Structures are given as structure tokens and as C-alpha cells.
């Protein structure tokens, strides 16, 4: 491992450096040369996917192991060098199983999102069209990707924060420039909420830095510090809430439905599939791992919010007419389950939360991808305005049905496997409140069947509508992302063993901290 350590860390750095560099190169390519812009972006993101896939394979074969009973996360492909020595800011990178698998999720979604944006130029025609800006779109996409990858590999709080903030600006511009509907309202709302969350995170991070007594931003070093209980009491909610806003926590989820509805397809995929996961990842990796006593004190509050969000999101999703809003509220419900898994405070629940991050990432990306492709044909996202699409577009129809089944938690798909762990984890709690709220949250799987079947039945089934005649099925370039995402959903859902044992290994240090 040592030999591959330094080489591995270079590869790990490339995961954010390549997208960043490609953004610079894209600036040099003439905007008129759309073909080159697209192909170059796709090639780079394909390369990153291969790179991350390779790292994941190496990781899975030789997972790093922490000493028994230790609260120190063992990292693979780690590197640690000073960045701003005077401020104790370091470039400390590495991955454990949680961040490694989330990296893979991100790489798949960036790659599939690129393919889903293939016709971004054509999609932009309209009265206020921004035609000719496809180049800018891909540049911003690459910047967003760089921020996401950088965040997942950072084990220095400050570096993490910088990468995290790097994602906000491109998101704002991508929605504001390339979005649809009330895009400026949505972009502003999203950014205000997320920046509010960032403010809380920043406060928490500085608190950690100063309170630790070691003047360090390093997550691994901080994990060995026992913070004073009084400090944990206010720092934990600040951090958990800050990340929770990003992670789509009820009732602070309000940025996401409007944001998704206005965002272009690939950005919805990235936002819901990956960006939100940065939030729940931060909740686990930073708030809970570093401040376990605070977590124990506050968990009931977040438990109630998690269960409320799970049920709330499902019921509100059932009322939506716009497919994107529907999926956005389904995401509120599914992210509620992530928080439920974290907040029930059991081993199985935590594992379920991590698995649900992955499962929801793939499933929601597949949904948004398919919604975008259907919209590109029907030019509407309103459920009542569509019908009988299955006959005209069997591939997209079957894909939508499969993604829908995954969303409603059908066994054999990723979502069920994750939810099974969360629910079992909830019932395994010795306390009544987690068990009660877990049982209540199970209502969401019934309502999920309602909103999924309502959508699939209305848009795909029924007699063909007039105006459907010219509709065509997916092209090859559109089939690739759909198939890839569904493949991931099925692979995790059918054969979860290896993934689960990797995640269990990475959770051990966090659990040791939580139980100390």
C-alpha cells in the first residue's frame, strides 16, 4: 500500500485537477466548435470515471484497516502536505470506504450528466435563449465537478470548506443562465440557503479549530480530541444543521425543489445525486465523528426532523404535477431516510444511512436524467399533459418504470437494500422514540408507491395522445447514461455484500468515537 500510496494520492488529486484543468482548456476552445467542446468534456469526464473506478478497484482489493478499537479513520491514497503553514491549513487528502464509494457515485453522475447535456445547445433555444453558450455550460460543469471531487477527498476542514464553496458559484450560474422557469428566483434561493448553511459550517469549523487546543483543521487529529461538553452543545447543532441544509433536511429543504425544477438536467442530477450527499457526508464525517457527545445530546431533535421530512416529502410528492418537483420531493423523503439512519444512532442505522446516500444518488440521478430526456421530447413536465408515451418510447418508458421501482424501494434495487438497513437499525434501538419514528417513517414506502405509480401510469400508460406521433425513443447516446445508472442501482441492490463490508470497515472508527 505504501508504494501505491504516493502514486495513489497523485491519482486522487487528479480527480479534481483534471476537471479543473479541462475547464481551463475549454476556455481556449472556440465556442463555435461545439463538437470539440462536447467531446473533450466527455473524454475528460470519462477519464475521471475510469480513474475513480480504478481507485475503487484497488481500494476494494486492499482496504485500509484501522487498528482495532481505534477512532482513527484509516485512509487509502493519503497525502498530507502543508498548504498555508502559518494558518495550519494543510492539503490532507485520502479516502476511506465512505468517501471512495461516494467518489464513484460522483464520477458516474458527472459522466452520465455530460451525456445528458449533449444537446444543451439545442435545449436552450427559446424566446430568451442562451444559444451559443454551451461552452460556458461545460466549463461551469467542470468547475462544479472539481469542487465536488475535492470535497470528498479532503480530510482538512479548511480545504474541505474551500472545495465545498467552489461548488456554489457554478451552481448559481448554471441555474441562473441555463435554467428554466423561475430560474433567477430558484438560483437565488438555493444560494442563499446554502450560503446560510455554509455560514453555520464555517462557525463550527473555527470553533473546532480554536477549541481543540491543537490549532488544527485536520479531521483525523481532531477526531482524537475530546471536546468540552459545553462546546459540543452548541457546535454540534451548528455543524449538523449547516450540513443538513445542504443535505436536504426538512424543513430547510426549500432550496431544493425550486432549484431542481429550474436547473438543467445534468445540474439536477448533480445537485440531488452528489451535491446533497456532501451535506449528509459532512453530518456524519464532521459533525457526528468529531462531536459525538453533542450528537448524543441533540439527536432526538434531528430524529424528529428526519422522520418528519421522510413522511412530509412523500405526501407532498404525491401532490405534484410537475415531474421534477415530484422527484425533488421524493428526494426530500429519501434524504429524510438518510438522516433517520444517522439519527437512530445504531450501527445498522448508520450503515443504512451511508448506503442510502449511494442508493438515492444513483436513483435520483436516473430519475432526473429520464425526466430531462422525456421533457426534451414532450416539451412539458406536467404529468396531466402527458400520456401513452410507452408506445412511442419503450426504452425511456421501461427505464422510467425501473427507476420508479427503485425509488419506491423494490427489492433487488439499491433503495430497498439501504432502507432495509435503516429500518432495521431504527427498530434495533433500545429507546422508544427511534423505534416509533421508524415505524411512522415506513408510511413513506406506501406513499412512495402512490407517487411513483401515479406518475408512471399517467405519463406512460393510457391511450396515445394526439401530438405523440412525432415522438422518438432514446438515441444511443441517451441510452448509455440511463443504462449505466440503472446498472449501478441493480448491482448495489442485488449483490450488496462487498459494498456493505467496505462501508462497515469505514464506519468502525466513527462508531468507536460515538460509543466512547
Amino acid at each position: 500500500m505504501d508504494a501505491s500510496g504516493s502514486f495513489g494520492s497523485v491519482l486522487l488529486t487528479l480527480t479534481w485537477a483534471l476537471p479543473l484543468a479541462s475547464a481551463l482548456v475549454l476556455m481556449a476552445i472556440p465556442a463555435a466548435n461545439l463538437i470539440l467542446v462536447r467531446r473533450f468534456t466527455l473524454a475528460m469526464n470519462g477519464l475521471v470515471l475510469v480513474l475513480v473506478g480504478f481507485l475503487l478497484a484497488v481500494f476494494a482489493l486492499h482496504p485500509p484497516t484501522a487498528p482495532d478499537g481505534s477512532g482513527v479513520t484509516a485512509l487509502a491514497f493519503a497525502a498530507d502536505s502543508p498548504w498555508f503553514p502559518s494558518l495550519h491549513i494543510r492539503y490532507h487528502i485520502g479516502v476511506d470506504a465512505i468517501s471512495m464509494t461516494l467518489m464513484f457515485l460522483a464520477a458516474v453522475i458527472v459522466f452520465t450528466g455530460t451525456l445528458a447535456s449533449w444537446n444543451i445547445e439545442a435545449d436552450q433555444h427559446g424566446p430568451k435563449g442562451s444559444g451559443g453558450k454551451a461552452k460556458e455550460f461545460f466549463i461551469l460543469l467542470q468547475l462544479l465537478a472539481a469542487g465536488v471531487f475535492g470535497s470528498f477527498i479532503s480530510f482538512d476542514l479548511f480545504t474541505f470548506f474551500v472545495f465545498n464553496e467552489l461548488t456554489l458559484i457554478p451552481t448559481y450560474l448554471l441555474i441562473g443562465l441555463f435554467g428554466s422557469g423561475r430560474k433567477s428566483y430558484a438560483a437565488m434561493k438555493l444560494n442563499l440557503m446554502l450560503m446560510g448553511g455554509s455560514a453555520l459550517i464555517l462557525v463550527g469549523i473555527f470553533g473546532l479549530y480554536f477549541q481543540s487546543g491543537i490549532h488544527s483543521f485536520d479531521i483525523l487529529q481532531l477526531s482524537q480530541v475530546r471536546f468540552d461538553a459545553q462546546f459540543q452543545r452548541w457546535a454540534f447543532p451548528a455543524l449538523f444543521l449547516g450540513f443538513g441544509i445542504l443535505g436536504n433536511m426538512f424543513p430547510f429543504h426549500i432550496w431544493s425543489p425550486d432549484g431542481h425544477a429550474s436547473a438543467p438536467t445534468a445540474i439536477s442530477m448533480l445537485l440531488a445525486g452528489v451535491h446533497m450527499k456532501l451535506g449528509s457526508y459532512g453530518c456524519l464525517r464532521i459533525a457526528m465523528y468529531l462531536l459525538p457527545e453533542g450528537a448524543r445530546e441533540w439527536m432526538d431533535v434531528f430524529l424528529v426532523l428526519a422522520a418528519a421530512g421522510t413522511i412530509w416529502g412523500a405526501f407532498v410528492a404525491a401532490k405534484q404535477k410537475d415531474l421534477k418537483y415530484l422527484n425533488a420531493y421524493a428526494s426530500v423523503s429519501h434524504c429524510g431516510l438518510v438522516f433517520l439512519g444517522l439519527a437512530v444512532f445504531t450501527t445498522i442505522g448508520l450503515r443504512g444511512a451511508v448506503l442510502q446516500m449511494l442508493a438515492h444518488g444513483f436513483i435520483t440521478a436516473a430519475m432526473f436524467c429520464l425526466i430531462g430526456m422525456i421533457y426534451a421530447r414532450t416539451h412539458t413536465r406536467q404529468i396531466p399533459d402527458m400520456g401513452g408515451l410507452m408506445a412511442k418510447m419503450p426504452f425511456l418508458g421501461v427505464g422510467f418504470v425501473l427507476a420508479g421501482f427503485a425509488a419506491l424501494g423494490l427489492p433487488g434495487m439499491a433503495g430497498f437494500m439501504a432502507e432495509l438497513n435503516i429500518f432495521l437499525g431504527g427498530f434495533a434501538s433500545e429507546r422508544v422514540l427511534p423505534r416509533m419514528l421508524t415505524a411512522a417513517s415506513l408510511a413513506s414506502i406506501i406513499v412512495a408507491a402512490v407517487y411513483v405509480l401515479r406518475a408512471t401510469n399517467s405519463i406512460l400508460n393510457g391511450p396515445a395522445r394526439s401530438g405523440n406521433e412525432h415522438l422518438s425513443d432514446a438515441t444511443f447516446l441517451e441510452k448509455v447514461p440511463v443504462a449505466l445508472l440503472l446498472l449501478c442501482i441493480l448491482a448495489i441492490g442485488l449483490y450488496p455484500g462487498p459494498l456493505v463490508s467496505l462501508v462497515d470497515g469505514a464506519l468502525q472508527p466513527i462508531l468507536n468515537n460515538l460509543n466512547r
Partner: protein
Amino acid sequence: MDSAAPAAFAPAGALVLAAYGVLLLPLLSFLINGLWLGRKSARASGWTAAMLMGGTLFLAIVLALGYRAQVLGRPELQGQTALAFDHIWLAFGPGSALAAKFGFLLDPISVMMVLVVACISFLVHVYSIAYMQGDAGAGRFFPTLSFFTFAMLGLVASSNILETFFFWELVGVSSYLLIGFWYQKPSAVAASKKAFIMTRFADAFFLIGALLAGLHANGFDFVVLNSPGAAAALDHNFALGLGSVNLLALGTLLIYTGAWGKSAMFPLHGWLPDAMEGPTPVSSLIHSATMVVAGVYLTARLFPLFSAAGPTLGVVEITGGFTAIFAAVIACTQTDLKRILAFSTLSQLGLMMASLGAGAPADAGAGHVLPSVLAYSASMFHVFTHAFFKCLLFLSAGVVIHAIHSNDIRDAGGLRKVLPFTYGATLIAVLAIAGIPPFSGFFSKDEILLAAFQNGHYGAFAATLITGGLTAFYMTRYFLLAFHGTPGSAHHADAADASHGHAEPHEAWLMVLPILVLAVPSALIGWLAKDFFLANVVPGALAVLHEGEAIGSSAHEGGIAWLPYAASGVAAAGMILGWLLYGGKGRKVGYPEGKTPAWYRLIYNKFYIDDLYVFLARKAVNRGVAAPAQWAERKLINGSFDIAAAVLKRLASLQSRFQNGQVQRYIGVALLGLIILYYVGRTIR
């Protein structure tokens, strides 16, 4: 792993291979036809699927014979369980023995069900080649049907309750896809959604129950859950909500709720009649012979655990008995060929459930009395016989529908000359379901009556007897209206519908052959298999689950002399009444229009239960919960953001006089951040 689990014996290698093959062949058929062949040629797809199902049936027979050879006649093996395989699918963490497994349990009832499912599925596949010919969607029909078979076989062979749930959902989804097979037909689409959501509602409770039971019994495996240790471990007070209740009762009732939905017990029965919107082979395979008995099977599978729980078997008995009579009454008035059969299925499922419920010791609570083996055997025996004659009835109804291009019994009539083979086979099935000796239904129903009577469950006994009479009545009505009398209105009129290629009503040999094959067990299996079944198969299953403990009176010897006469007497009375009302010259389907009395309309409209669902779904849940949530989401939660943003904007615009900047809102936030930072800094200090 768990000391409570009985020692396993190793099944022979051939048995293990056959077990894998039984699951793999239908899966293979799904993959081949679903990914490739179905799009190329519907006919080739049908033949391929049918041949693979033939292979499955062959392997199921190998499995059954091999199992019999290894176990039966060797009492020392009777108390042991055999697992053909049991792979860990998902282990629940280090330091816990809990795991979800993918296993194949070999015991008498699982082997029996594998055999039944494989047999019925093979025949239905063959039948469908002809039935689906010319249908534009035939290419996707066969993969889905094969997928269902795979899931159903997985369900019955499950070694643990999570595996059951896994396949339980998969059969549910294939049922959804097949009910809505004609996806351009709005009624079919609505029916598929209703079926899925209603069963899903029940499944959520099932999942809670399964997880709780597994957690506290420290294992999801059936051998663990059915061990006396598990019942003892579950038998304590447990708080899931505000109060605390006995976990054994709560867990088993929650699990039973799943069975309740899947086997369509009242009031969760509404989806099953609507499910008849699917193609008739689907109704035959899924919604009568196999999937809907999954609930009964699950209850039987956990019978030792259920019987240890105080009130659970009582609930099973009441829901079953009530559903049996309730559905039989409705069946007497319906005019849709398939819906009559669907209500008949509901009623028969009720009998199976009631029989299981009647297995509860009559003096429950007063000391540990072992449950009745006979009640359990009778239920499983009825599952067995019912599969054949009900499948036959549906397949023959399909022939009728093909012939007259209508589902309405008023369009049928006088078909006995046109469809002679179907006529003969249907007659056998009608006699079987009516309980006329020596046809198969008589024997299984007789066992149910005997068990209920011997156990002192006179309620279940009376329900079975009444249902028997009603069944004989409505099946006679069905039979006479379809095959006797004069041709119905639509009959032959549009039979020249050239698009289907049926100039004249006729019997395609691929459709008739399965029907004739099914007529043999419908007629004889009760008489042939009864002694073998009761002496070997089912008590063996209970012994497996009870560690070979000799339980109850396994013998039905002696019996009650007058019982067979009473049962067949009631059946004969029902048939005679049916013949009096619907036989002869007059064709009277129901009451003449306009003059129907209120009670008849009440029954005809299925006691308006469907309207109650609509009220609950549309009014109570949609308008009562979802709509207010949506309003609060937009107005309160998002509204408060908009108000906060407006306030902030106003503040920022005041401040912007000094800044003359464009980014007011950022500044507002930055300011807020600074204020927070300031106070935080103070707090830290």
C-alpha cells in the same frame, strides 16, 4: 449459529442442483425473452418460455421425488430441516448473527408448492402461446410471466422471512405489470395501480413485523422463528408507540397483515376482482392458483409461531371465515365471467385462512395446548386441490372469452356444443369446487370441516359449511349461464372479427390441452392424494418446524361419520337451487333491470366497499393529508423564506446607499454571518 435451530441434514447433491435449476430456468427465460427474443418473435418467445418452464417442471418433479426418497419413511429425518442452499445476501453487521439470506428450504410444504407452481406455470405458458397469439404485446408477455414464476418459486422456497419479503414484492411487481399488461386501457392501468398500492399498504406492516420478529428472535430464518425459543424470546411487552404491547402478538399480527393484503382478505380484498383486467392466463396463474395463496402459505409457514401467539390465529380465523362467506355472496350476483371466479377465489382463500385459524387450540390461554395438525393439513391440502381446479376454471373462461369476445356472462350461453372439451373439463372443475364427491374439492373441504369441528371451532365450521352451499350455488349458475341455455346477445354476432382470426368460436388445441391435463387432478387428486398427503406430507412439515415433537392428534382416523354427508348434502342443495333458478329454458342472469330490490343491488355493488376505498383515498388521504401538506409546504415553509428574503432585501437596500453595489443579498448574508461569528467568538471565550 443458533442453538434453537434444529440440526440440518444434508440434502443429496442432485437435490441441490435441482433446487438451483428450478430457480434459474425461469430466470433464464425472463432474461432471454426480455432482453432479446421477445422483441424478435413473440411466437418463438412463447415456445422458448414454455420449454424452459417444462424444464422447470421436470426439475421440480426431480426435487419432489428426491426429497421423498431421502426423507419419507425415515422417521429420524422427519424432525430435521434441509436447506438446498442458504447464502448470506446481506449480513447485518459484525457482532450480530442477523443476516438476510438467499436460501432454499426443503420441507414438505415448500416442495409441494414448488411442484404446484411449476406445474401450473408450465401449463399456463403453453396455453398463453395460443391465447396471446396476435397480441401486439405478446413479446413482453412471456418474459414477465417467467419472471413471475421465478419470483413465486423463490417465495415458496424462501428459507427466511426477509427472503420471503424480497420475493413477495417481486411477485407483487410482476402482478402489477401483468394486470396492467394492456397499458393503453385505462381500467387495466387503474386496476394495476390499485393492486400494487393496496398490497403495498399491507406489506409495510409485514416489513415492520418481520424486522421486529427477526431482531428479537435473533434470526430471520424460519427454523429460528418457529422454534419454541423464538416464541419465548418474543413473548414480552414492547413499546413501539406510546403504550407497550406483547411483542409476540404484535409481531405476528403485523406479519399477518402482509398475508391479509396478499391473499386479499376483507377489507383488503378490493384489488383482486379488479385484477381480472389482466389477460386471462395471468388471472389463472397469478390471481387464483399461486400468488394469492402466498398469504395463506406465509401463515402456514409461520404456523408454530402464530399458534404460540394468543390472539393471532383468532384474527386469522375471523378474517378468513368472514371473507369466505362475504365473497361467496357477492359471487352469486356478478355478471362478469372472470369476476365471478375472482370472488370465488377470495372465498376459497378465506376457507384456507379460516382452516389455519381453526388450528388454534380451542382453550387458548389456559395452558400450553398444541395446535391442531389436522387444521393445518386441511388448509394446505385445500391450497393444493384449489390450484388445479381454479386454474382450470380460469383457463376455460379464457376459451369462452376468446370465443365470444366478451367477458360478460350475459353474452355467453349455449356454448356446450361449440366448445365440447372446455365444457366437459369445466364441469369437472365445477363439481370439484362445489365439493361433490369424489372430485378433489370435496376431500379438502371435508378435512377443513372435520378439523374445525374436532377443534371446537364451530364458527369456522359453520362458515365453511355455508360457503360450501353458496359455492355450489354460484358455480352452478356460472356453469349453466355460460354453457347451457340459448346463445347470448353478443354471441356469434361479432365472432367474425377478422382481426383476431377467429371466424368461428373454436378451441385451439394449445389452449384445450392444458385444460384437459388439469381436469385429471381436478377430478382425482383429492381421492388419490388425501391419505398420502395427510399421512406424510403435512405432518412432516409441522414436525420439521417443531423439532419432531409429536403434536396434536395427527390422525384423522375415525372422523365423524355424518360429516361427509352433511357437506355433500349442502353442496347438492346449492347445485339444485342453482339449477332451479338458472337452468331450464329461462335465462335469468339477475333480477330484471329496474326491479332489483335494494338488498340485491347492495350485493351486486359489492357492498360498496370500492366506493369506500375511493372515499378514503381521494377524500381522506388526498384532501385530508396530502393537500394540506402541499399547501403548508408552499405557503408556510416556502412562504416564510420569501418573507425573510423580502425583509432582508429591504434592510440591504437601506444599506446599499452606502455601498452602491449590486450584490445586496450577499452582503445581507455576509453581515448575518459576521454577527453570528461575533457572538460565537464571545461565547467561546
